[in-house]
């Protein structure tokens, strides 16, 4: 029985559909990454599951209880939603005590979570004196208060220094290994890749992929990176490869070709026939970032647009 199951879950805000007919299942245990571009509906999905907002249509179950009755499972969930939220004039400890009282949790547990996130020594300081990273730790401490079976963390490494990020990643892995389910929403794909077992990718409120991380990368296949001798030939090379049936993307001075390593020689031949000499030709496995960008249609910010798609878009013919 999955821990979370959504069925045609939809949430509209006026004319905007934030979550659209979402069918998602998340199994118990492990660390699950929830990724998608800004505005893809991640936070709305989290708020729906936590009972903070109500769906427009569809349904969802969490711990076998409908999300219309979040009280049935609230005690089993800890969450950090968007950014840490505290009264700035209260100390870290007082803020946590206030939440602990609401949940009926002892003060001893407050000490435990402060120690877990490394804030025990500074727990009497007002939260307003904390750095962004310390506030983030405090937010994680609040999420850990109920000793939750399901932990939902939205951008948990925001504002943390590299050492802090490693600590949080280690903590997430530990929690996942203990049999808890941890859902992590993050823009940092390297963090997701390092910490998560499974992944759910959303865009425009729709689920694009759900399953093991390895399956996603494998599904995306390999690619060949071709580097023309003259940088200005990159665009022409990509166009030439697209006309021969490959999917090619210009990234800086390189051309990424969606093709297995066995087709590298064919790519080289095609370049030669187009009168372009290659300086390098490297078979590569697609990274999660590449897969994500390809899947969500996002630009990598370095001229990474699919040539074929651009041509057809220009003609008003839609995506390739």
């Amino acid at each position, binding site marked *: 029985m999955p821990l979370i199951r959504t069925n045609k879950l939809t949430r509209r805000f006026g004319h905007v559909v934030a979550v659209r007919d979402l069918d998602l299942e998340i199994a118990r245990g492990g660390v699950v990454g929830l990724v998608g571009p800004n505005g893809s509906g991640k936070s709305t999905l989290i708020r729906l599951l936590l009972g903070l907002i109500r769906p427009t249509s569809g349904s969802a179950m969490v711990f076998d209880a409908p999300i219309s009755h*979040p009280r049935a499972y609230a005690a089993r969930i800890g969450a950090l939603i968007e950014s840490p939220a505290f009264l700035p004039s209260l100390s870290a400890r007082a803020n946590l005590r206030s939440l602990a009282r*609401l949940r009926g949790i002892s003060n001893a547990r407050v000490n435990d979570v402060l120690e877990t996130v490394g804030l025990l020594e500074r727990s009497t300081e007002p939260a307003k004196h904390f750095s962004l990273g310390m506030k983030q730790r405090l937010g994680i401490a609040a999420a850990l208060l109920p000793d939750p079976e399901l932990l939902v963390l939205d951008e948990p490494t925001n504002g943390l220094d590299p050492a802090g990020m490693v600590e949080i990643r280690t903590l997430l892995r530990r929690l996942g290994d203990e049999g808890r389910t941890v859902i992590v929403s993050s823009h940092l794909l390297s963090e997701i890749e390092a910490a998560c077992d499974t992944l759910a990718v959303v865009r425009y409120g729709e689920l694009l992929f759900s399953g093991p991380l390895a399956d996603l990368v494998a599904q995306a296949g390999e690619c060949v990176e071709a580097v023309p001798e003259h940088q200005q030939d990159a665009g022409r090379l990509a166009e030439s490869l697209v006309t021969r049936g490959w999917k090619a993307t210009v990234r800086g001075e390189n051309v990424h070709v969606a093709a297995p390593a066995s087709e590298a020689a064919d790519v080289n031949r095609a370049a030669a026939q187009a009168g372009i000499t290659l300086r390098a030709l490297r078979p590569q496995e697609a990274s999660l970032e590449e897969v994500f960008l390809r899947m969500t249609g996002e630009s990598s910010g370095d001229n990474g647009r699919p040539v074929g798609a651009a041509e057809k878009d220009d003609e008003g013919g839609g995506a390739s």
Partner: protein
Amino acid sequence: MTRAIRSELARLRNRNFILGGIGLMAALALMLTTIIFVTAGERVMGPGEQAVTVETLEAADGMFVGVQSSFSMLGIVVLALWAVAVTSDYAHGLIRLLVQAEPGRLRLLGGKIVALAGFTCMASLVTTVLLLVVMPGIAALAGVSTGAWTDDLLHTVAVGYLNLTLAALLWGIAGLLVGMVTRSAGIAIAVGIGYLLVFEGLLGMLLDSASRWLPGSSFSTIAAGGTADMTYGTALLVAAAYACAAIAVAALLFWRRDITA
């Protein structure tokens, strides 16, 4: 709901809120009362205001007359305190943590109301004690005889405290409503002041007889223990109706509204 009350009390134990809230209410009460005592019989009264004579101040409940005759100013302070307590949950995003921890939103709201009511009772008590301690001295300075004040002092103080507290609670509930509607402390306080000083004041000038039924007037009537225009009992009924309506609207808004803060 006990958990919600204890949690809210833990947040209200914020030093700034306690000093700001109780201190401001007590200081303002003392200041207004002092002005009334010093200027008794001299002040030019505005429309709807009743003159405070020296004889009134020398009566058994004289020490409370200052607070009673200018209660709307204290009411604004209480309105602001309740509005700030409601809106700060939204301003700091705390509301999403609270609702996630306790999805029973009416329990959360009930806990907040009970905790704030307790805080208001405490603020009224401090104000009453302050008046009790300081007013004989101020009365002596203003040349007001306090001989009658000690007649049945306990009863006078108890009634004065009860009326002060009831009226403060009613203003607080008004603050709860505007805070819940606006979700912004600044706007909530502006709306409260605008309503009292502009809207209800203008209506009072235009519709003298009907204005007594307005919320601010009925709350002030309770603070004063009844007036010539409206009995204490009628004012209690009118104010209770406003309070119930305000709590119902606030609860409905909180229960239905998306938590997007």
